[in-house]
């Protein structure tokens, strides 16, 4: 297979497979989780489940001050790479083209040099996170081989995207093919790994807020 054929495969069949797995996986996981259901709370309510849940979905993005002091690195590095992923995925012109082609939705892109700088920052943040994971006693204890795999799956599109944009090391089609392939890997892995937090975070935060809010405490 020459590199153009590989590029055509990842833009065609490969993308199709990845999309199918992603869409199917996300839907299956959502049913799998939500259909388990939750018992109705029979205690007299002191607050609203729904609105507290919705509030927590937002408020949990702002770290509580004591834990910010204690987990500053995790929070700052985490924020950088999450914002970085958002910017590089959703505000880079070629990506918006892809999204608008698939969904019909489009929005203005950020200037490319900004996206580029953000990508570099994200890569640095993710590398630092990996180092931190190995150096921190607690994280070493928690870390599974799966975590390292997911770290790789997350940083790969950033790195391949960066070198594809700057055209380092490989031919254009190969760079693009490898980049798209790395994204397809991410798409396939997402629904079946801890990356599910991309969508289950909304459920988890809502439940947290609802459970707490029912008792009159905004979590």
């Amino acid at each position, binding site marked *: 297979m020459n590199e153009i054929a590989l590029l055509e495969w990842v833009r065609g069949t490969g993308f199709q497979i990845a999309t199918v797995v992603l869409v199917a996986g996300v839907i*299956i*996981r959502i049913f*799998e*989780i*939500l*259909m*388990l*259901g*939750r*018992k109705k*709370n*029979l*205690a*007299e309510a*002191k*607050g609203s489940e729904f609105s507290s849940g919705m509030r*927590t*979905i937002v408020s*949990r*993005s702002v*770290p*509580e001050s*004591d*834990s910010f002091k*204690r*987990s500053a690195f*995790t*929070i700052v590095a*985490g924020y950088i790479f999450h914002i970085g992923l958002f910017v590089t995925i959703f505000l880079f012109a070629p990506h918006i083209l892809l999204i608008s082609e698939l969904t019909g939705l489009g929005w203005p892109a950020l200037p490319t040099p900004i996206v580029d700088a953000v990508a570099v920052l994200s890569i640095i943040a993710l590398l630092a996170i990996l180092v931190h994971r190995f150096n*921190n*006693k*607690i*994280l*070493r*204890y*928690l*870390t*599974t081989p799966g*975590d390292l795999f997911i770290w790789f799956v997350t940083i790969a599109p950033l790195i391949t995207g960066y070198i594809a944009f700057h055209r380092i090391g490989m031919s254009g089609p190969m760079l693009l093919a490898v980049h798209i392939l790395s994204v397809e890997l991410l798409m396939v892995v997402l629904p*079946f790994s*801890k990356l*599910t*937090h991309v969508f*289950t*975070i909304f*459920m*988890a*935060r*809502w*439940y*947290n*807020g609802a*459970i*707490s809010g029912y*008792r*009159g*405490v*905004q*979590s």
Partner: protein
Amino acid sequence: MSASLEKGVNALKQQVDSSVAAFFSSCVHCGMCADTCLFQTETGNPASTPIAKAEPLRRVWKSEYTLLGRIGKMFGLSKKVDEKLLTEWETMVYDNCTLCGRCSMVCPVGNDIALMIRKTREGMAAAGHAPEGLIGATNRSIKIGSPMGVKLPALLAQIRHLEEDTGLKVPVDVEGAEYMLLLSSMEIMNFPEFMEAIARIFDKAGATWTISSEAFEATNSGIQIGVSDLAAELVQRVVDAAEKLKVKTVISPECGHAYMAIRWDGPNLVGKAFSFKVRHILEVLDTFREEGRLKLKDKISEKVTYHDPCQISRRGGVIDQPRRLIDLFADDFVEMPDAGKMNWCCGAGGGVSSNERADEVRLQVFKRKKAQLEEVQPDAIISACSNCRIHIEDGLEEYGMDIPLMSLTETLAEHLADD
């Protein structure tokens, strides 16, 4: 698989619901929960990381309730819950967690980790992996009616003493009273002043109240050990008594988990909404204050601080009431850092105080409270949980500190206006 292990795994299967599934699906192993847990910050033990404590429940969720886990199980690849795991995890789940729920407030993906550990205990207990101390307490609760083995005659004796000493009346089994008071065994045996305080305040406020001779115990060891069946049995006793006496409101006394047990878990355990209300004593007192039925004669000048019992404030929703009440009698009130819903646990809740095996670690983690107290330098500490109170006194003694501890209700009673 032994019969008891099977029972434990089955109990874990029962505990998984959509919230648990969403929580486990979302965990990214960021480790932030560790930084919020005093059992981790004060011991440095990575195994004390809150989310790691729910590992048995996670394994059951993964292999029973996820597509990938099901496939893995088919090929024998899933991680199993076995005796070894439960033995290893027992000390983490019971000795090194007070279910304080601080982690649940911080987890960036929103996992209610305390709930997950609470659910894990259901499986541990059913599999026979609960600590001796808690088993004993549960045994006494079910068989005698109190975890400390306090029987009705002992209570009646205390009431008699009280009535003789003060001339106040403590109503027992009065049908149609507005309030039915529950008491923790500690309050009966160690802090009888509490009952006296109630009698004074309710007398002044003109509220009718009673104690049931059939269900006076507020604590619920079934909740702490994690056996819903037994917890339900204990709750049912209170429900029966309250219905029999036709009271409007059941009062949970100054005890954290007792409030959680009867206020929030109770109806769900017995599977029926209550026909009466449940209120914490601080909520009742705050209502009296609001209605002008609680008048004080003087204020104290000492610098006081308030220790939030986790199950009453963070997990129970009673946060502002104690502060409003303290304002009635204290001029110099200072908050500890992270007060309110982010308060640090004393280190002995969630059954830890009943578990002798955890004596060492609970004193070790008290260092957090100690540090907070050192920062604030109060002349006195006010709290609203007998369990916190006993443990803090223990801790202060251990670390050679001398700060008096006061019950909020009792302090209010001491400063009641005479009119």
